[in-house]
């Protein structure tokens, strides 16, 4: 079913009301054991004594699944770029729409006001730091994405959906030393009601295959928390694309395997770093946003060979350059703080 060409109410009808809760107690025991074993192996080798847990988020997970050198360069806090600003505004605009009794209009202004109310002034600050023309282009892009995203939802929202935004999903392992953490943009239904939850993520631009992994990570967290499977995983994109995937036990298992893989990679990465070994590189479209691109030989060669040498100029915004590589989806660099 193509939601983009069907009435907006279809999304709500599709993801709520009909699904039955599916007990996953056995699956949870199986996965927790698998995850605890992997976490224990890592923490035995590299004890974590920071006084607060190590949070493994979808961003860390994604980083650990790719280039090790890039994984070693954690994103710079407070680093804003065009993609992040557009995504942040579109996300806030949709959340504003979901809690609004009034009709739409002035989506970007409403989103910026919402972000200000939430104490998040980064996007507004970035917009204030660029030229009027650039600011207008970014606002136009965000407005278009926000309008498309809003069209996915019925308005006014059905209160039967029991909608929450930015609900934290955390699963502590090893008595809380390691926390698997996420925060889906929108959560519908779920315990303690009879209806299983549906997790929704909002993206300002195009649908990308990588998002399925991210959503399955959320499904893993929700399953471990609720001891029942979520009903659906939904990705809504500002491009008008979307995906609605029913959750199966195998998709949750796949996410757990990726977490185990990430923990093993973290262990290997730590060994490499501790022994001074050169970290393995895996050049891709993501090199455009990597902080190491200015000195990493592998990244530099890849960018030059793919016609993206301009990214090596620190004055150029990588978001302004086109990339055809499959891994070159827009990279925000960091999750919101959990």
């Amino acid at each position: 079913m193509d939601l983009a060409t069907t009435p907006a109410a279809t999304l709500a009808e599709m993801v709520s009301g009909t699904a039955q809760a599916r007990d996953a107690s056995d699956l949870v025991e199986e996965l927790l054991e698998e995850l605890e074993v992997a976490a224990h192996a890592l923490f035995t080798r590299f004890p974590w004594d920071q006084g607060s847990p190590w949070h493994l988020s979808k961003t860390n997970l994604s980083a650990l699944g790719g280039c090790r050198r890039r994984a070693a360069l954690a994103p710079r806090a407070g680093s804003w770029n065009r993609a992040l600003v557009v995504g942040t505004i579109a996300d806030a605009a949709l959340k504003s729409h979901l809690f609004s009794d009034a009709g739409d209009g002035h989506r970007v202004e409403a989103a910026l006001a919402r972000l200000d109310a939430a104490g998040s002034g980064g996007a507004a600050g970035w917009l204030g730091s660029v030229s009027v023309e650039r600011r207008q282009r970014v606002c136009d892009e965000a407005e278009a994405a926000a309008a498309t995203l809003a069209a996915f939802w019925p308005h006014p929202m059905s209160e039967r959906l029991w909608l929450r935004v930015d609900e934290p999903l955390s699963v502590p392992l090893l008595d809380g030393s390691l926390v698997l953490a996420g925060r889906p943009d929108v959560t519908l239904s779920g315990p303690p009601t009879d209806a299983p939850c549906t997790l929704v993520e909002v993206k300002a631009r195009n649908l990308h295959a990588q998002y399925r992994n991210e959503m399955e990570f959320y499904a893993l967290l929700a399953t471990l928390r609720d001891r029942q499977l979520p009903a659906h995983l939904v990705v809504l994109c500002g491009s008008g694309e979307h995906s609605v995937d029913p959750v199966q036990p195998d998709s949750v298992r796949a996410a757990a395997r990726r977490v185990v893989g990430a923990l093993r990679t973290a262990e290997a990465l730590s060994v490499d770093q501790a022994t001074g070994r050169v970290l393995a590189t895996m050049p891709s479209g993501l090199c455009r946003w990597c902080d190491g691109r200015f000195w990493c030989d592998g990244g530099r060669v890849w960018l030059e060979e793919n016609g993206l040498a301009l990214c090596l100029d620190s004055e150029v915004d990588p978001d302004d350059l086109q990339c055809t590589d499959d891994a070159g989806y827009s990279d925000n660099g960091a999750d919101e703080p959990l």
Partner: protein
Amino acid sequence: MTCSARTTQGIATTAPMNRSEPAELARRAEVATRPLVDLVSARAAASVRLARRDALAVARCPAGYLAETEGWPGWSPPLAARSLARAALWAATSASRPDFASDDPGSIVAMHIRALMSQGPASMSSVEKWIRDPFLETSGRQLTDLERRAWRQETAARASLWLAHLFRATGWPPDPAVRFADIGIWSHPRGSVSLAATVDAHRVDRDGEVDELILVTDDAPDLAAAFEVVTATIVGSHAPRAVRVMNRRTARTTEILVDEPLLDTGARLLEASAELRGLRVQGVRFDEVAAASGSHCRFCPAVEICGAGSAWYAHSEARAGPLELVSQSRQAE
């Protein structure tokens, strides 16, 4: 502390013990707050209300507690969320809406805000008035219409999320024994100082006595439970049987049975917070008391000028293990 219990999945418990006499706890509270009453009276200072927040701040770091600014910071979406959610619950469960459990949990906050917008502010609580017409209390600046809507929406979103956490602890629909009203406030016989029970819900037994306190908190659940059970016991002259604590991030519920050590821990917290609040009323500076460093230093207003806090940061960076590579901070290769 002997009341803590290992939480596996679901609910963890400890063995029950005899309960302290409520009168003895009230006596300890009266003795502990007497110097504070004297101070407030002597200085003609504003009356003081001690609550869980004070007790936990004191337990974390006495110096950090003294570094906090005295006074009400004004409503904001994070501060107003819980109060709005509780006001909405109160409205939903009041005599006018006895059928609220047939509603969807998602409708409670939205319905209450709609009701607030259509009423005059006369009978509203402070947070309800602010929701109806939010403004920046810190500067007194009036907000534009767009900003007012945004602040209302942000608060509503946070309140809805808070209710979701609460309903995970109470179940949905809540059984008739669950009450959402405040338990109450204890005031020192000479006034000026009061003690507020700030539980999020409670369950009553067949006799109508408070049987179980329900807390939604991520912050030191054992200490929060200890403090709240003591205040509730003093206020209600009856010791609850248990405290159920819901962790918002993990959605795990821990049930802590009320026993002598728990009550003693709570009473000691109360005594420590009364003493330290007295120092704050006297204007004692944060660097005149011992600081206890830890991860809470990240949120302390004095971290940049506190020796212990600065040392904690430096040590924290120095001991950052290899895992820090893939964690939050930037690392140059």
